[in-house]
């Protein structure tokens, strides 16, 4: 087989692999829809407001409930003590009504 045909075959395999992954992704997202609904039900039942990702500080545990003086509210220049704060972007001044 010539080099050009081998390259075309290789590229097609890559495209097929990627397309397969995308199709698998859509299938998995649809399959896990029930899981998402159960999580939403949990949020509603327990009246939760935030994701339990960063537990190192109050304002990283509950970014949406944090007071004004945090990196997530109206103070973009507030100094960060915790690494998690550095991956959370400040909101644009005036972008919230709070």
């Amino acid at each position, binding site marked *: 087989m010539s*080099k*050009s*045909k081998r*390259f075309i075959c*290789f*590229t097609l395999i*890559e*495209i097929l*692999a*990627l397309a397969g992954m*995308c199709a*698998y*992704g*859509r299938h*998995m*997202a649809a399959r896990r829809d029930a*899981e*998402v609904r*159960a*999580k*939403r*039900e*949990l*949020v*509603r*039942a*327990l*009246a*939760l*407001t*935030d*994701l*339990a*990702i*960063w*537990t*190192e500080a*109050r304002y*990283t*545990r509950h*970014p*949406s*409930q944090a*007071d*004004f003086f945090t990196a*997530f509210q109206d103070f973009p220049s507030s100094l960060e003590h*915790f*690494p*998690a*704060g*550095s*991956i*959370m*972007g*400040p*909101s644009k001044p005036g*972008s*919230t*009504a*709070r």
Partner: protein
Amino acid sequence: MHRHLKILEYALTSLGRRWKKNLAIILVYAFTIAALASVLLLTHSLKTEAALILAGTPDLVVQRLSAGRHELMDTTSVDRIRAIPGVGQVAPRYWGYYYDGLTDSNFTLLGLDSAVPELRLLDGRLPAGPGECAVGAGVAEVRHNRAGDEISLIDGRNIGVIFEITGVFKAESNILTNDLIVLGQQDLIEFFNLPAERATDFSVQVHNPAEVNTVAAKIKKMLPDTRPITRSEIVRTYDAVFNWRSGMMLTIFSSALIAFCILAWDKATGISAEEKHEVGILKAIGWDTPDVLELKFWEGLVISLTAFLLGLIAAYVHVFFCGASVLATVLKGWSVLFPEFRFIPYLDLYQLFVIGFLTVTPYVACTIIPSWRTAITDPDSVMRG
């Protein structure tokens, strides 16, 4: 068609002559795209999941602020808020934080009073009486507990209190419950030694979603020391939190971009003497300028398309099959209790096309332009250098 295939054949042979250099370029290029695409896939997945599950949050959460800090809400305000037209149920929420000295981790304690329907994501049941609790999988893991065991915590009076674990939240709900301990409402009030008629905040139900902001404004006017937080603000907060432009993610993204720019700059600033010589020979043996440009186009496309596809596949595998193991360490920060991510593969094809357009096109252009300059020069002078 046959002519194009022959030029592609020649391009592949030409690339094969410098295979070490080209392989290195493909690997660096693929790594750059993988890093960039990983960040985008991860943040898109988290943002989508957050938006979907936080759609169940209360319409309004009302907090009290005192001297710029959270203060407990006076529960006598419940009736005043309920009297606002359009407002449904107003429920005080009781919750707080607990630092666990045994494991050096922070737990979130939540008090429940009303009968909660059976939860699919809970093994066991929620606390139904005093001295009972349900815990998140992360808490159960660090304290080596399971349903039926007892867990001891130190309360607000510095006295050890023992609770029986009646349920453990399933690992699927870790993103919401990993650090959570659910107690009965009275147990929580006694545990934190909360004053009478005080709650952490209120959750407010608004019948008409279009009236949420109006109700929030009325609450703010009626109780000036409070801060109403709407559901859309909660969702928007997470949109900002996971925004791909933010902080550390941006650093990773910039590093990848800078590495790619150096690579592209190296190609754009000129072609090597050997490559110039090759173009000169091709011109001398009868190749036209368009043929030379097509050759260079194929060379650029072979490298960039291969790297782009390999990079995307690597990013997908990294994020959705390996739980973004490399980026998760960056995300983790100083959290002791950190949920294991099980990203749902929500894909934004537009995002993938944008990555493709912004990486493949400039590279191909950078390969063609210097070759075009050489190709329009007299072959004799090119070969003589």
